């Protein structure tokens, strides 16, 4: 089959590789009909998260048809022929975190838990196509994928709904939603959202679903700011204004009730502190650039909440912990506990409350993935979200 492989920093290549096989009793094989490139993949593209290995298959946002199941899969939950969306977190369904619905913290799904324990104390769940520290599982930017514990994660999709409307249940819709839920929104609250990428677009809409009165969205990419406005958000361009000043002004010296960091470890910025972070990251002394997190802590109102769906990989520096402590701020974060949200959000799609396909700017055949990574990273060609089609032939140029 064809698969997008990580061959090194900024080196994504499509290779012919063997088809995946059932390895464990609870595995299934899915024939992939749609798969996406995520902002999280960009951290791998840029080489910022350790323990990738040359030859790893990327991708964690995919859906398709079940073509094979292992002998241990609960047949009442999943059978051959089912059309499913696969969540990016891999969870066993039986451990204590799974029982508590903390699916992205599953105890049992990471075969390399010991590596993660060195960096984090305890290991989160395994993920598809996202470093060996987090499982080393081959991912879903491919024609087929092996899905472990297949009777836990994948959600069945009835016929009649196109892929485009449901494929984002694999990550970014639930991630945006959980980001908003973690904001502790009370009716009428003001939420500041850093980033207007695909995840943030869902976060902004979810804030309104959960009763926010105002959403202030921050980015510098025009088409992304426009898409945020279309959802009813006010917008700020961090190239043009000082974000702290602007939020101060807009909230009358109170600060937003909640602040959401939907940017993560590769935030862009200005000034001395940005240069400092960038230099440390390049010199490998620091893994992440916590520019947005710093701003969020400073901007947040007293007693407010900070929600961090943006991904961080390792260690950061110069976090204003004093402000965090003295202002009595609550911070919530985590990889998304996918299985909590997929069902309810599918129902919202079915009821027509939201059509998630609004974020799609590009549909490309899988072979074009390397180019897709580049334009997505560099925000060229008005790129917002790319869906890859594994079985489509590229047009002869």
């Amino acid at each position, binding site marked *: *089959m064809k*698969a997008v*492989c*990580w*061959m090194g*920093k900024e080196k994504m*290549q499509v*290779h012919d*590789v*063997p*088809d*995946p*096989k*059932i*390895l*464990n*009793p*609870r595995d299934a094989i899915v024939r992939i009909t749609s798969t996406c490139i995520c902002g999280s993949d960009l951290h791998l593209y840029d*080489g910022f*998260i*350790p*323990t*990738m*290995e*040359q*030859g*790893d*298959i990327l991708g964690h946002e995919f859906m398709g048809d079940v073509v094979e199941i292992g*002998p*241990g899969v609960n047949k009442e939950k999943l059978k051959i022929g089912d059309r499913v969306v696969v969540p990016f977190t891999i969870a*066993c*369904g*039986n*451990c*204590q975190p799974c*029982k508590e619905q903390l699916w992205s913290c599953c*105890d*049992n*799904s*990471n*075969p*390399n*838990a*010991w*590596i993660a324990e*060195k*960096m984090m104390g305890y290991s989160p769940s*395994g993920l598809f196509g996202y470093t*060996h*520290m987090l*499982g*080393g*599982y*081959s991912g879903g930017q491919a024609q087929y994928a*092996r899905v472990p*514990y297949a009777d836990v994660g994948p959600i069945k999709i009835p016929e009649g709904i196109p892929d485009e409307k449901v494929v984002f249940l694999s990550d970014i819709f639930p991630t945006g939603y959980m980001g908003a839920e973690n904001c502790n929104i009370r009716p009428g609250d003001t939420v500041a959202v850093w980033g207007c990428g695909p995840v943030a677009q869902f976060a902004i809409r979810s804030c309104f679903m959960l009763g926010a009165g105002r959403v202030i969205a921050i980015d510098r990419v025009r088409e992304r700011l426009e898409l945020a406005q279309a959802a009813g958000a006010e917008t700020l361009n961090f190239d043009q204004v000082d974000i702290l000043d602007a939020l101060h002004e807009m909230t009358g010296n109170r600060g937003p009730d909640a602040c959401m960091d939907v940017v993560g470890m590769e935030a862009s910025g200005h000034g001395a502190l940005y240069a400092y972070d960038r230099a440390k990251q390049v010199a*490998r002394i620091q*893994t992440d650039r916590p520019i947005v997190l710093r701003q969020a802590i400073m901007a947040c109102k007293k007693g407010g909440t900070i929600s961090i769906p943006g991904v961080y*990989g*390792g260690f950061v520096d110069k976090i204003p912990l004093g402000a965090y402590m003295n202002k009595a701020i609550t911070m919530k974060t985590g990889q998304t506990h996918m299985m909590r949200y997929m069902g309810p959000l599918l129902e919202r799609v079915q009821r027509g409350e939201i059509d998630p396909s609004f974020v799609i700017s590009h549909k490309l055949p899988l072979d074009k993935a390397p180019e897709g990574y580049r334009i997505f990273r560099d925000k060229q060609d008005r790129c917002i979200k790319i869906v890859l089609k594994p079985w489509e032939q590229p047009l002869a140029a």
Partner: protein
Amino acid sequence: MQRSSASSERGSSQLPFGPKTLVIGAAALIAYGLTRRSKTGTALAAAGGLLAYKAIQVRSTEAKTHAVFLVNASPEQAYRLWRDFKGLSRFMVHLKSVREIDTRRSEWVALGPGQREIRWTAEITEDTANQRIAWRSLPNSDVHTKGSVNFRPDPLGRGTFVSVNVEYGVPGGPVTSGLAALFGTKPEFVVREDVRRFKQLLESGEVPTTRCQTHGPRGIHGHTERVLFREKTNLPDPQAAPAYRKSA
């Protein structure tokens, strides 16, 4: 003074996974990590540093290991899974097989590099249903070992504490290299990972693995990363069908 230096010297010359090997391994990791121009490098270097630190701790000719996991199961379920000795190789990845000779004795076979077999006969010294199993190797074994596992229900009903203590003695001579084969890395790590796999098997019915999965071309870079970092030693075989075993 005299005595302690003698004993530590004996320790380091006899211990196959001893400080020297570990320090060399650690140094390699650090060096490799630091020369790599990537984030992986940083992590490798950090892992190397940890190994080096641990190496200093392994000093005697005996290895005492301990591991504990709170599992989501009853003491009965945990005891039953462990007491089925012939199934131990499902979570002790270095074991090839365990054959029960009679109710007390069993023959254990572990696999070293080049498929070399390391054998020992163990006898059960204690067996209290749902609470505790203890065993030790009999004379004429390739490895001297004794161990125990305790199953203690959490008083607050949060599951069962499974705590394992295993000691390995090194009889000396050529056998030491056998032990080295068994513990490419340090014994504490091996035992801890075995107990972790026991928990995974007990709770979810299988042990997660990526061994034999499909992937793209590894190249020299990818192969080095795999060998240096983990995949060779710590990943169990797939468990779905025997046909897939050891296939890739």
